[in-house]
């Protein structure tokens, strides 16, 4: 659906050019929810704006649904943009228009006749769950409701692709979840391809199929979300994964565990996919006779399976420990001995 090749964007500046996007290659499949994560300044905002031609690339190509976005201009580009919806961090609604009129705006641009416009707006209001708010002005809505208007507006012309520019970054956690659910819902109902950029790993974990990690204009890592959670390679990816899996400063928490449980071995077990659901600890105790003490754990659900980890204290003779490690590796569970005490 979306094919990005060798895409580069350089902004000329007084003290040296700034390379915001640096030779980026991406293939995004139809119906996929694809996340791009990075800290601010990583170039993800520029990248998403290159996808609908709001920025023109310095070099490279962007092809969406067969259209060469990097090559077209004027009326043809405007026509292509009607097939690419976009929602924004700050919603960007027209405050002078009611909910209904805001959603109607892209239809007016596409020159849809008035009768059809009204019908389509009613459908969209139902789709995003804003019944009863049709005639309210944006200033009378909450953040979540505003983003729902933004989503309805972006979907008005039945686009094939939806671009989300930090769509939940201005919302509280609860509202974020409800907006993410809505995005998953329309992804499934309409088969829409969604590209979202964010700095929150939580968003990626909740709804994305695949993720690309961006740093200094480059894609440093890309893959299925569970894969990235299991085996993050780049240091920045590890940081993002930690955002979700660890509640406290990790070293501090472990230090605390060491002091509290000085006997045996402190082991971190990492589960992914099916292994999360198996009664591993019971099996270990039964088959090895070790004393196992569960200290701390966490499970995160991603679109392609669960990911979790467990800190346990294992005490017993060396043979039993060796046997325990065998069982664990046979079950494909990651084992990391934190420290021999």
């Amino acid at each position, binding site marked *: 659906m979306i094919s990005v090749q060798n895409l580069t964007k350089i902004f000329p500046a007084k003290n040296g050019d700034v390379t915001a996007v640096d030779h980026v290659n991406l293939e995004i499949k139809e119906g996929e929810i694809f996340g791009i994560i990075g800290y601010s300044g990583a170039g993800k905002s520029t990248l998403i704006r290159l996808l609908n031609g709001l920025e023109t690339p310095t070099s490279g190509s962007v092809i969406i649904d067969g259209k060469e976005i990097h090559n077209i201009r004027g*009326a043809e580009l405007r026509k292509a*943009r009607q097939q690419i919806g976009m929602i924004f961090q700050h919603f*960007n*609604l027209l*405050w*002078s228009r009611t909910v209904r009129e805001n959603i109607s*705006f892209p239809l007016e*641009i596409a020159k849809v006749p008035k009768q059809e416009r009204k019908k389509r707006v009613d459908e969209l209001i139902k789709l995003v769950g804003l019944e009863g708010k049709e005639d309210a002005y*944006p200033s009378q809505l909450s953040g979540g409701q505003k983003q729902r208007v933004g989503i309805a507006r972006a979907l008005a012309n039945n686009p094939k692709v939806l671009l989300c520019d930090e769509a939940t970054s201005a919302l509280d956690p609860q509202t974020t979840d409800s907006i993410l659910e809505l995005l998953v819902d329309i992804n499934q109902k309409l088969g829409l391809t969604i590209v979202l950029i964010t700095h929150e790993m939580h968003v990626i974990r909740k709804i994305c199929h695949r993720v690309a990690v961006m740093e200094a204009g480059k894609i440093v890592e890309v893959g299925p979300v569970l894969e990235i959670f299991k085996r993050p390679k780049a240091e920045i990816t590890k940081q993002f994964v930690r955002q979700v899996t660890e509640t406290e400063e990790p070293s501090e928490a472990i230090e605390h565990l060491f002091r509290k449980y000085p006997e045996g071995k402190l082991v971190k077990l990492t589960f992914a996919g099916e292994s999360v659901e198996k009664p591993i600890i019971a099996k270990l105790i039964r088959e090895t006779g070790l004393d196992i003490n569960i200290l701390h754990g966490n499970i995160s659900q991603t679109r392609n399976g669960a990911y979790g980890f467990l800190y346990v204290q294992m005490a017993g003779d060396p043979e039993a420990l060796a046997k325990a490690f065998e069982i664990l590796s046979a079950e494909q569970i990651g084992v990391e001995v934190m420290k021999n005490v």
Partner: protein
Amino acid sequence: MFSAIFPNVDLAKAWQKTWETLYMTGISIIFIFLLGIILGLLVFLTSKGNLWENRWIYGIISGLINIFRSIPFVILIVLLIPFTKFLVGTMIGADAALPALIIGSAPFYARMVEIGLREIDKGVIEAAKAMGANTFTIIFKVLLPESMPALVSGITVTAIALVGYTAIAGVIGAGGLGDYAYLDGFSQNQNDVTFFATLLILLIVFIIQFIGDFITKKLDKR
């Protein structure tokens, strides 16, 4: 009672002078509104980072606005005499005051339009672009509606300044309440006439302010 306080005021004449002031203000405000919005839009659109970014056009229009805004109104009337004679055919009467009133106030209003347009969130313009809107649509469906409260409160301020300008024009022969206060009042040493004309001007200003505030409030849904 009235003739005791204002012995020299002829109500028929006062009404005629009021009408002249309203006529000058009304006609010019229509032209100023249109001209100011066109100039303001051009300056905004050609400024840095906007749809028609163009340093030269921006520089020229912005320069003209600054020049015409800086010339004192009395001097502007004199400078425009040949132009007015060519356009209206005379230098006397309310119609002859119109060119100077419009040219003197439109640049002032254009700046207020520009400020109003600048206050629009850039993100909203970007959203319209992302929807595939062309510049025409962005102007008429985003820029003007979104800045309408600022445009109306701007024209209110301009209209009030304009009432003052008509009074100056009146002294030079355009008629209106300024002419009434000066020729019938001051020149003939009839202070009550000057005072009455002042009251009428104040009344006009208050009414303009009231209407302007009312419409601005109605339009503003922020």
